[in-house]
């Protein structure tokens, strides 16, 4: 049986070989010619013995099973029927075929698994390097309020004032920001909320307006206060921030970019 030698490594056991032989007959497993199957199998095992292969043990067990089945089939028909009617499972022929069918199914299933494995290898899972949140529309959620804006102006003013002072001009500032912080806190402590425009009632000079802005800005920055607005064009109101907001550490301002 030269073709067996060629195929040798393919057979991973007696079931594998049996299946191969069934396929060679080109019939349904249930229609297989058991005598032919047994003969070819035994021939194969003979070749194995000659080659002194380890697995032979399992093949020899199967060979004897096949011999047994073959011998039963040689019995007169009436004796066969008697046996198969009430105890189908005990019929070694059916038992073998059942095992073959099952084995074949698993072999097919393993082919399916292999296909899945190959497909899976071609599939790439999206793993974005960063969380890509749409950058443009974030503009609409800028957390910059009018206070930030005015605060920026004021800081600028102060810096310019320092510059002027360095140049020898003396700038008087009778209004301290810390005083104004205390004042705003007091007023809010009583009322709970305050209209933005009301903050500047009674301001007597530019310096006082500036100091009040700065104070307000500082409180907003520290998140002790919040500015709210009912709608985009409504009056801004200042309220005491909820406690959990106050606990957020304020962000550090970004360092200035400097061009040379």
């Amino acid at each position, binding site marked *: 049986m030269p073709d067996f030698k060629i195929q040798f490594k393919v057979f991973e056991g007696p079931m594998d070989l049996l299946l191969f032989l069934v396929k060679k007959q080109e019939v349904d497993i249930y229609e297989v010619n058991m005598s032919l199957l047994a003969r070819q199998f035994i021939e194969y095992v003979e070749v194995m013995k000659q080659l002194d292969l380890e697995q032979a043990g399992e093949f020899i067990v199967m060979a004897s099973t096949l011999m047994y089945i073959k011998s039963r089939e040689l019995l007169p028909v009436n004796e066969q029927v008697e046996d198969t009617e009430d105890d189908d499972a005990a019929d070694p022929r059916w038992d073998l075929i059942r095992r073959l069918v099952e084995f074949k199914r698993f072999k097919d299933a393993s082919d399916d698994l292999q296909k899945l494995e190959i497909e899976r290898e071609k599939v790439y899972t*999206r793993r974005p390097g960063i969380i890509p949140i749409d950058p443009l529309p974030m503009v609409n959620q800028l957390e910059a309020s009018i206070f930030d804006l005015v605060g920026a102006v004021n800081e600028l003013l102060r810096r310019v004032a320092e510059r002027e002072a360095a140049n020898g001009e003396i700038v008087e500032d009778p209004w301290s920001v810390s005083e104004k912080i205390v004042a705003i806190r007091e007023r809010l402590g009583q009322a709970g909320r305050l209209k933005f425009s009301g903050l500047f009632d009674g301001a007597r000079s530019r310096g006082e307006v500036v100091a009040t802005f700065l104070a307000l800005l500082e409180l907003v920055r520290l998140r002790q206060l919040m500015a709210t607005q009912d709608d985009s064009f409504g009056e801004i109101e200042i309220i005491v921030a909820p406690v959990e907001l106050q606990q957020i550490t304020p962000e550090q301002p970004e360092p200035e970019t400097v061009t040379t």
Partner: protein
Amino acid sequence: MELKQILEAIVFSAQKPMSIGELRTLLRDTPEKLPDELQTGEYAKATARAVEKALEELTVEHDAANRSYRLACVGGNWQFVTKPDFAPWLQVLVGAKPRPPKLSHPALETLAIIAYRQPITRAEIEQIRGVAVDGVVQTLVERELIEVCGEADAPGRPRLYGTTQFFLEHFGLKGLDELPAADELRRIHVELATAPAADSQEELPLDNEANEADDDPDEVDDDEDEGDK
């Protein structure tokens, strides 16, 4: 804003596949961590079923859109994956996937038996395959495709083997129900285990009293990976 949109955005942006549990945790935590007027609380208490249903709807929508990627659930974790056609470019872009060597035929066969018949002892596997499987089983355990999942109630208390989470990931399966022809192979198993078939039919002699207690056909949803073949 619909729940499924939120889930889509999360799965789309996440750096790893997300389980339903993780998604629910995120839905729950977001309003807690954002003391805000943002209306993130609406779905804070979404049930697992609601989340799963939304994800399934998304899967269908994406399959229908027929893009170069799709939403997939692998081993219970949801992720966006590209379709296989584009593998060459992605391999050059991302690099070849680091993978252990492909499974051998005996290994695949043994694995198939375990996958369909779990929990199963080594002796039972050997009965089906007709050969000893010590080495193969050991290899599969080492590759974390199977694991010991108990002991059989039999003399010597042999170990029972079952597949792992990694098994599902390796083959890109949503769950064991997605195994090809799962019903057929399981059914044979049940009948062999219970009683011999009384009368043999032409196709399968062993196919009668369906004892499918452990099958759960309602859970099967199999249409999800057909679209992109």
